[in-house]
């Protein structure tokens, strides 16, 4: 009599998508570093890596080998467990993000009914890892980076979640596959609320994955390496890996939610999704090549004073649009976020009385 091996078959069947994700995502991330260096170089009029392999295509491998052969330093007085766990804790959730993102109508590793919530929940675990890294290093710069990071990620989490809320509002589902299917006729980015949501998710997403202009946690010109100051070798590489995996996941999420996922003429679905993802990643790199870093005070105020009211108004506008429909609904859904943006930026950036040189002169004269 044969032992019952169906459970083993099930495990193997479940392992296949897991292995595919775990094999493809790190390779994709490695070539993302190559793409980033090439695009930034072109923007700055350079050529970028071109020595290792044709067009420098083997550069990521060379970097990997270099990182592997670097000494792993642990500073004296560090919390060793915290220091060791942080890079693992940041990479694993970043990999989890890919399980709920559908590549094709049936090509999704975990078709959760709560896919969108799962994405947001898993995505915010990274904050914990960043804080563990900063705290565990027992370095003042690392801790400074970590506290900044916690404040920043908390601040941008709110508008991100609120801008995502328009999706279940319109589709009545949190399942990523159903969300893409709802965009069969019209991508959400071509609706007024969808466009605002798309812009919001780009801005807050850049902040969530700590990319320029929101890369304050690792602002190298102010606080050395930020939270990963005390990391070297492979552990440092893992932080980079998590950042690029996050960028990749953000690009995929934005294209799934707003750019119609796999929908598109002529080409097969996964190719379309990849094209859209890479356009968004290109945009992120382009932004990095253009804009300077936020100032820390502006960063927090931007999230709370501009993005939060904008996301809320977009949600309400979308709800109005869904109920009323027609041109009235569209106009309201367009005008509400725009007027809120204009109002909040005026209030936020209005010139405040500051001690100027004239002020100092008049005061010194009176003395």
């Amino acid at each position, binding site marked *: 009599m044969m032992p019952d091996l169906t459970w083993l078959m099930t495990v193997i069947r479940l392992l296949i998508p897991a292995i595919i994700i775990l094999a493809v995502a790190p390779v994709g991330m490695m070539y993302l570093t190559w793409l980033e260096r090439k*695009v930034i170089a*072109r*923007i*700055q*009029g*350079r*050529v970028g890596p*071109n020595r290792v392999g044709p067009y420098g295509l083997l550069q990521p491998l060379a970097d990997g080998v270099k990182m592997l052969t670097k000494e792993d330093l642990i500073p004296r007085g560090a919390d060793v467990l915290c220091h060791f766990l942080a890079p693992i804790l940041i990479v694993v959730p970043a990999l989890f993000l890919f399980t709920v993102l559908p590549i094709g109508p049936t090509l999704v590793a975990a078709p959760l009914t709560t896919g969108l919530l799962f994405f947001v929940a898993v995505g915010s675990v990274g904050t914990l890892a960043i804080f563990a890294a900063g705290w565990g290093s027992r370095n003042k710069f690392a801790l400074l980076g970590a506290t900044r990071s916690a404040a920043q990620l908390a601040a941008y989490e709110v508008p991100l979640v609120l801008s995502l809320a328009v999706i279940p509002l319109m589709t009545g589902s949190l399942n990523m596959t159903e969300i893409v299917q709802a965009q069969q006729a019209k991508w959400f980015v071509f609706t007024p609320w969808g466009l605002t949501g798309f812009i919001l998710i780009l801005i807050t997403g850049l902040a969530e994955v700590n990319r320029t202009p929101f890369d304050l946690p690792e602002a190298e010109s102010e606080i050395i390496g930020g939270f990963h100051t005390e990391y070297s070798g492979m552990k440092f590489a893992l932080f980079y890996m998590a950042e690029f995996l996050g960028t990749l996941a953000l690009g995929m999420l934005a294209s799934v939610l707003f750019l119609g996922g796999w929908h598109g003429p002529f080409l097969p679905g996964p190719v379309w999704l990849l094209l859209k993802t890479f356009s968004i990643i290109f945009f992120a790199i*382009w*932004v990095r*090549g*253009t*804009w300077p870093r936020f100032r820390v005070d502006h960063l927090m105020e931007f999230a709370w004073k501009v993005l939060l009211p904008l996301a809320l108004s977009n949600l309400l506008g979308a709800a109005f649009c869904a109920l009323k429909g027609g041109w009235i609904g569209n106009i309201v859904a367009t005008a509400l976020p725009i007027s809120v943006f*204009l109002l909040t*930026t*005026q209030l936020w*950036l209005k010139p405040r009385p500051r001690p100027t040189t004239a002020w100092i002169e008049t005061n010194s004269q009176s003395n």
Partner: protein
Amino acid sequence: MKIYGLELLRGLGITMGRFIATYTVGFKRTFVNRNRGSFRQSASEKGVFTVQYPEERLKPPERFRVLPVLIYDGKKGDTRTQQAERCTSCGICAKVCPPQCIWIVQAKDAAGKAIPKAAEFSIDTDVCMNCGFCAEFCPFDAIKMDHDFELSNGERHQSHIFDINKLHVSTEYYAETHPIAWAEEQARKKADAERKAAAAAAAAAAAKKAAETPPQ
């Protein structure tokens, strides 16, 4: 009221323009004008400005100076006996050299009498500071500054002392590296020769006149 954020979009436009320009300009450089000269140095130039050094080289400016060389009249690759040396081993270069890196030994003929020719002429390239005084002071245009800057070496005690064989270069080579200075030198020599000829003719005419007029 001011609309915020528009300048950010303008910035994005500028960088995108730069990004695209690297491809359009690169295409032009590869297929339209295959000029690999010093065009990338100008301030208005767009596109990739990187010069990939070992494969691509910029022509150094003419006044660029690295290490003195000794000039002989002739072609490249002339043998030592064919070289018409300009150096007369007068020693002015060795005297003006601020770090004192030039050694000269004057040549002697069979009878032991000094002749205007250098038997040995060596420069310690580690000491030379490329000031160019030797070239400035040489009355015979025999010493000039070179352009060859790729001098790195695995050994420094023997190979960094350049002897006369290593220092000798032809006027042909010099005319290639320094076309402007070479043309000026030629013009100056020609003018000198003409002036001398005119002076000689005038002197001859004066002498003839003096001979014709009877003394009073």
